């Protein structure tokens, strides 16, 4: 009896374990990449870093020596490569992401002061665009071949190709410059509020600054979801089970429910797959709006060659991506009974 009980659980666990191992391997490869990149710059990486720092500030000779020594330590260049790598990884796992060259404070601090704002923009916009996009895609699939479908598809096609940041520029121009409805960017009115607070006035002000970036991201993302959903739904609509259910007298609404259920599953994994481009697009949008998220510091860090900060940002981004992948895998495994019983391939 206990053997029977154990059976349904195992395939799902195995699937999840496989995925976890894969994601860990990916993370490991990524760590190698992050680790190797600064060391692949031709010439003594330290000399170049030093030169960059010196270009920005004039320092006393003792300070230069001090910096040199600190950099040496930080990069552990006196030890063999694999020990450097191990140190690097353990440092990361302890949460020490180094010190920003430019800001002169720990990278972790810089990033974590910006992340909440990015998330506030990222999560709602992703959810909203996902819901609306999938819904519209299903409608287009249901009316495939007819006028509604063609019009919707043209819109989706174009929208999905418009870069997030360009749409941001257009929206900002129209709604903040030409017609002064919304503020010219930024996250909150710095002349009125020095720090964020939970007062009603602040929240309204923040929302006013929030709407344009939010709309920009949602509009840019809808097209992609809709196109994907439409393809899946059209495929499902031609399936044997649709034909058979119809022949047994099941109503159209019920059959659509079936189709939707089966088409939505890949769209969930799509959330994790598209994470990279969504985040990339959002960061650039934040740049255009001068929104106080990760976008601006990414730009600055690249501009100023602040390598610890660049690396820190990417470590955070990729780690979040991999965790998001894992969460999506859980959800998918729960929803698709074929995975639960070991049928589907990972």
């Amino acid at each position, binding site marked *: 009896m206990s053997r029977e009980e154990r059976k349904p659980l195992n395939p799902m666990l195995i699937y999840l374990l496989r995925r976890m191992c*894969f994601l860990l391997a990916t993370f490991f490869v990524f760590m190698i990449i992050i680790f190797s990149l600064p060391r692949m710059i031709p010439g003594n990486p330290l000399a170049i870093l030093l030169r960059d720092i010196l270009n920005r500030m004039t320092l006393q000779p003792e300070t230069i020596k001090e910096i040199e020594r600190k950099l040496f330590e930080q990069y552990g260049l006196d030890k063999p490569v694999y020990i450097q790598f191990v140190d690097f990884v353990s440092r990361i796992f302890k949460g020490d992401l180094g010190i920003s060259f430019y800001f002169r404070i720990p990278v972790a601090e810089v990033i974590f002061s910006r992340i909440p704002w990015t998330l506030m923009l990222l999560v709602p916009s992703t959810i909203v665009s996902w819901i609306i996009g999938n819904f519209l895609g299903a409608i287009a699939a249901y009316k495939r071949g007819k006028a509604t479908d063609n019009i919707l598809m043209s819109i989706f096609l174009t929208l999905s190709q*418009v870069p997030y940041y360009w749409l941001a520029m257009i929206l900002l121009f129209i709604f903040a410059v030409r017609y002064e409805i919304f503020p010219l960017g930024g996250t909150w009115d710095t002349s009125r509020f020095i720090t964020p607070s939970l007062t009603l006035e602040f929240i309204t002000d923040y929302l006013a600054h929030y709407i344009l970036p939010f709309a920009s991201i949602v509009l840019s993302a809808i097209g992609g979801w809709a196109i994907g959903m439409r393809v899946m739904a059209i495929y499902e609509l031609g399936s044997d089970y649709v034909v058979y259910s119809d022949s047994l007298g099941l109503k159209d609404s019920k059959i659509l429910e079936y189709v939707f259920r089966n088409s939505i599953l890949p769209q969930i994994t799509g959330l994790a797959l598209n994470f990279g481009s969504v985040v990339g697009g959002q960061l650039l949008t934040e740049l255009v709006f001068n929104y106080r998220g990760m976008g601006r510091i990414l730009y600055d860090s690249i501009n100023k060659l602040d390598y610890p900060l660049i690396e820190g940002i990417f470590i955070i981004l990729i780690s979040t991506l991999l965790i998001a992948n894992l969460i999506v895998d859980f959800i998918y495994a729960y929803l698709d009974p074929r995975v639960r019983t070991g049928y589907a391939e990972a």
Partner: protein
Amino acid sequence: MFKIKKFTFSISVLVVVILVALVGPPLYPKLNLSLYAGTPDTPPSNEFPLGTDRNGRDILSHLLIGIRTSLYVGVIATIIALTIGILVGSFAGFKGGVIDEILMMITNIIYTLPAILLMILIASYLKERSPLFVSIVIGVTSWPWLARAVRAQIMSLKEREFVQMSKMSGLKGYEIIFKDLLPNMASYIFMSVALLLSISMLAEAGLSMIGAGIDPSTESSLGVMLQRAQQGEAIRLGRWWCFVPPGIVLVLITTSLLMLSTSIDEYFNPRLRGGK
């Protein structure tokens, strides 16, 4: 029928764009790529049909050159990604077994790491920001999805009779791949080329915007022009001629490419046309 209109529309747009890119710069009489070609921040006028930017650049001149550069990056990156993707995908799919497992492991890892983010990361360490180097970075990070798709197709095709016959007549692996399998995937490869071009051009623009792309002090591309507009506060100062033209051109090109790709797909997959 709508789909034929889509196809002709997209092809014509692309042909026009390519022509402009090739003959535009030489034909445009007032081509001037230097700084302070005119008074900075002037709106479109007879002298400068698309106005000038903050540093006095003639927008139209830079747009013409920019199209060329962006297309160049797109083409080079596509060639690189196409080559790697097809090679990896067909060898993994054809050989199967351990080779397949290893290649797919590598592919999946790179696939999971988002291309844009990888690109930005790698590019920010580059000393030289020439279009060629940027193309290489884009190409080298954009191939995994293609490899997977190619592998899937190869795996389903290789069981077919004509392949078995070639096998039995002693043709070697790569001969079979190139003579039998790939020609059967011609339509899919065309689609992929269109998609890759579009992705690469958008990637270049994104990279340039974040400052990890082409060096704006030496070259102009569509993305670079957008970056200049952003850095020069062109949007906030209402100088639409700095960012609208390059954006429109970019959207036009990439939308036409996607339309082209979809219409090829619909032609070969009648189910997507609808009306079943």
